[in-house]
């Protein structure tokens, strides 16, 4: 397999920051043994209209926990649907939250990006509710009132490529 070396930038480049405001966060879980049934419910046509902006799932002690962020109206409908499904347990509904996300050259292939992101926000006292980093992207779910400050901090920390 070919190996390519990627240089280290003194200030990490991004292609800019994007926000998605006014979302609802829904957390729910189901036993691992019921994942097939939950999958069957998710693949129903009536849920196809939902456009989640963020999904993560984490496995923990014989269950899998999901976090979805959706526009508020869709979030309410989805939350109501989950309540009707005996196999899933809705555990949390937060509104409003916002997402800030960004990507950059070779994100996913190089070390240091997560540290730069989390350390700068932590130092500024900004609490991250949820995060998902995959496919060269960093997604952060924050309380709505933290989004301006977070973008300011991240813009000072990373270099936005022109």
């Amino acid at each position: 397999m070919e190996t390519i070396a990627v240089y280290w930038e003194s200030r990490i480049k991004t292609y800019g920051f994007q926000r998605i405001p006014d979302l609802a966060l829904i957390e729910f879980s189901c036993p691992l043994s019921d994942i097939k049934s939950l999958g069957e419910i998710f693949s129903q046509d009536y849920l196809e209209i939902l456009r989640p902006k963020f999904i993560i799932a984490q496995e923990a002690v014989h269950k899998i926990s999901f976090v979805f962020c959706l526009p508020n109206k869709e979030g309410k409908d989805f939350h109501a649907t989950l309540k009707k499904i005996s196999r899933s347990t809705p555990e949390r509904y937060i509104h409003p939250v916002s997402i800030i996300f960004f990507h950059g050259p070779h994100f996913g292939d190089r070390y240091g990006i997560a540290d730069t992101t989390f350390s700068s926000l932590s130092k500024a006292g900004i609490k991250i509710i949820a995060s998902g980093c995959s496919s060269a992207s960093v997604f952060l779910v924050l309380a709505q009132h933290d989004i301006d400050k977070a973008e300011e901090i991240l813009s000072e920390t990373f270099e936005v490529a022109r």
Partner: protein
Amino acid sequence: MEKLKIGGLKQSLELCQFDLRGLNSSEEIASKVSKLLLAQKINMEFLTFYSQRNNYNQLTFCISQDKFSATSKILKKEGSLPIGWEINSRGQVGIITIFPHQSAIMILGLIMFSWAAQSIPIYGIATSLSAISFVTDYQLADKAIKVIQDLFQMPEDHAPIKPEIRYHQSDIVKED
């Protein structure tokens, strides 16, 4: 019935996974762990973090399989993590990423259902703007990909699914 169209599919190299769980501490866990890995020049290829209502947090990340021992050692070293934090690890996992996910919930549901029917586990999921990534057993990746290829319609001129290039970050600093 017509198959749902997807734009592509990608498989990662062999990775390992760490799940860290515990109560909120004064230092954010994501910041603390990413700093520990940075010091060893270890790249996280996948990460999910969630802070639950009861201040219980979970950080899950995947790194290259060849960093498994070094990372276990770092995390288990006294003082690396806040007191009471639980560490679970799993070797030989892989990430399968699907592009794009215009019908994300349906794609998620179809994969959850079909993989479960074939006893293919899901250890983690994360979405980005145009992709949905699943962590599963590396040994079952070929079987998992076959299931996806049977479920969805892929472009005829699809790029190779398996990685052909491995990126390595050099120590050379590029000056502006």
